[in-house]
């Protein structure tokens, strides 16, 4: 009897073992799938209407075009032949089996990832559908086309340290920091770059102009000054729109593909980190200073903007955001206000019932004098910012915006 029992237990054990291993593997793949969303991998590694993770999306840099690579499980063209070690090296150090990666792949942020998360991502990518698609050659100018130089770049600019928690902060804050700085790689756009085009960590998250729009200053100091609550941030990151306005330009795909998929706990960690506060923050009262109909800016506002944004800046649900409490116009430097006037905003769809219509570009309609009057007027009515910007200041910002578009189109 005893022997029998043992034999039974043993066979049950043998039966259960592979099942447990499989379940653990599945769980790891699931976790990796979530992490891949967090890292927004698919967005950069998939061309429009292309197969997921097949690569080929062009990235225009000041040095030329870099194409994202095939990261599907295909053994020939993708990363199917990578060992876990190869994958880790690529994620942390930007070194793939075939050579150094360009820092357009944000290993300069991903190095923070912990081992178990890297493994989860690895397992997930190996479980994805193989895509038979060859990688495209980059189109870069000399000397940036020599991959060898990247070794030197990494030596000077890349620190491959794994995330270290800040003992003075809460667990939630640290989780937020891990997400935002690691897989979320927010710093890649929101941190100004230095002369070597590396993130200038002394100005962490202070904002940077890219492709004609500014990835905003998202330091706790600025977000708190603008009166963001945790709920506002949750709304804008999850749905793309909030009491504080909508996302636009490069941030729309980030919300669509990545942040809208965050779990509640992770989102709460992110907002705690961004506001540097674990508790909910009370909303400040909105600024609306009333209209001054004798101001030339009023005619411009009522002629060009009020139809969609409302005469009192109240906005229209599912059409256009409100200007009251809008963070884009409440900035010391009005680059993004000018950017939307010049470039317009593309239509944004989040679901069948939520979205915003496109805003037209006024590049050829408004001259610098009008842009100046309108910007001053909007600031005067809906913010506490100065409203005495001069035409030459505005011209300077317009030039910067146009230069940054030209840079991105090189």
């Amino acid at each position, binding site marked *: 009897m005893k022997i029998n029992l043992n034999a039974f237990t043993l066979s049950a054990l043998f039966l259960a073992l592979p099942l447990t291993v499989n379940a653990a593997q599945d769980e790891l793949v699931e976790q990796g799938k979530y992490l891949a969303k967090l890292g927004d991998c698919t967005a950069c590694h998939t061309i429009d209407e292309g197969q997921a993770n097949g690569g080929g999306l062009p990235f225009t840099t000041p040095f030329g075009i870099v194409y994202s690579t095939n990261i599907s499980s295909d053994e020939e063209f993708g990363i199917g032949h990578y060992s876990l070690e190869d994958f880790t090296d690529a994620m942390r150090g930007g070194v793939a089996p075939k050579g150094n990666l360009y820092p357009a792949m944000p290993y300069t942020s991903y190095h923070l990832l912990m081992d178990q998360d890297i493994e989860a991502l690895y397992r997930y990518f190996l479980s994805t559908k193989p895509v038979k698609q060859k990688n495209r050659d980059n189109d870069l100018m000399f000397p940036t086309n020599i991959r060898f130089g990247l070794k030197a770049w990494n030596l000077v600019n890349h620190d491959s340290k794994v995330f270290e928690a800040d003992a003075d902060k809460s667990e939630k804050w640290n989780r937020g920091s891990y997400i935002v700085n690691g897989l979320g790689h927010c710093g890649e756009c929101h941190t100004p770059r230095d002369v070597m085009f590396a993130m200038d960590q002394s100005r962490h998250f202070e904002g940077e102009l890219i492709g004609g729009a500014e990835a905003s200053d998202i330091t706790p100091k600025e977000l708190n000054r603008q009166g963001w609550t945790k709920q506002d941030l949750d709304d804008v990151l999850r749905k793309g729109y909030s009491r504080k306005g909508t996302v636009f330009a490069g941030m729309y795909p980030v919300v669509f593909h990545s942040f809208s998929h965050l779990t509640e706990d992770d989102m709460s960690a992110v907002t705690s980190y961004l506001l540097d506060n674990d508790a909910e923050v009370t909303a400040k009262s909105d600024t609306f200073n009333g209209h001054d*109909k004798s101001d030339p800016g*009023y*005619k*411009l506002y*009522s*002629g*060009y903007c*009020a*139809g*969609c944004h409302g*005469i009192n800046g109240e906005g*229209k649900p599912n*059409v*256009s955001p409100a200007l009251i409490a809008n963070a884009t116009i409440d900035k010391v430097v009005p680059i993004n206000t000018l950017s939307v006037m010049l470039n317009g905003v593309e239509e944004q769809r989040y679901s069948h019932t939520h979205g915003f*219509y496109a805003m*037209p570009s006024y590049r050829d309609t408004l001259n610098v004098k009008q842009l100046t009057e309108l910007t001053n007027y909007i600031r005067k009515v809906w913010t506490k910012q100065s409203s005495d910007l001069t035409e030459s200041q505005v011209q300077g910002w317009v030039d910067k915006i146009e230069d940054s578009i030209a840079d991105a189109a090189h």
Partner: protein
Amino acid sequence: MSTIALSINNKAIGPIETSDDIMMIEFLHEHLNMTGTKFGCGVGVCHACTVIVDNEDGSSESVRTCINGVSRFNGKKIRTIEGHAKENEFGEIIKLSPVQETFIENFSFQCGWCTSGFVNETTVLVERLKLMPIRVSEIETVIEKALGDHVCRCTGYVKYYKAVKELILSTEGLTRS
């Protein structure tokens, strides 16, 4: 309140007192009784409310009146659907514009709600092509680009596009080899 003066269909309008914060379509309908310009979505999407603005440099552009305030049009020269056909001294219509003719010949519209927008947009397109003729091979893309945002709730697109294509091909100077 503010004072507005502009030219509509080559007639001087105003100076006329109006509230500053109304949209142009309301000004046309309520102040001038010009109801040919149709109001659809009211949020700039359907393009039914499109009118023509004539720029000083001789070019023309289409502008939506539901999302553009009356102040934007102060001092401007505009054309609406009421200004296309030729009238005699008694105000009777004696001749339609070529764009109107071609839409009628092709039975392009049904209920007519979108028609004034289509007529104005097509007129702007034809005037642009007079200045910058296109290759015949580009016709379809050009039409699509110009008219693609106009919504016809009776789904008359095929007939509209066919009519515009015919008009472009049969009007001298709009295409080049």
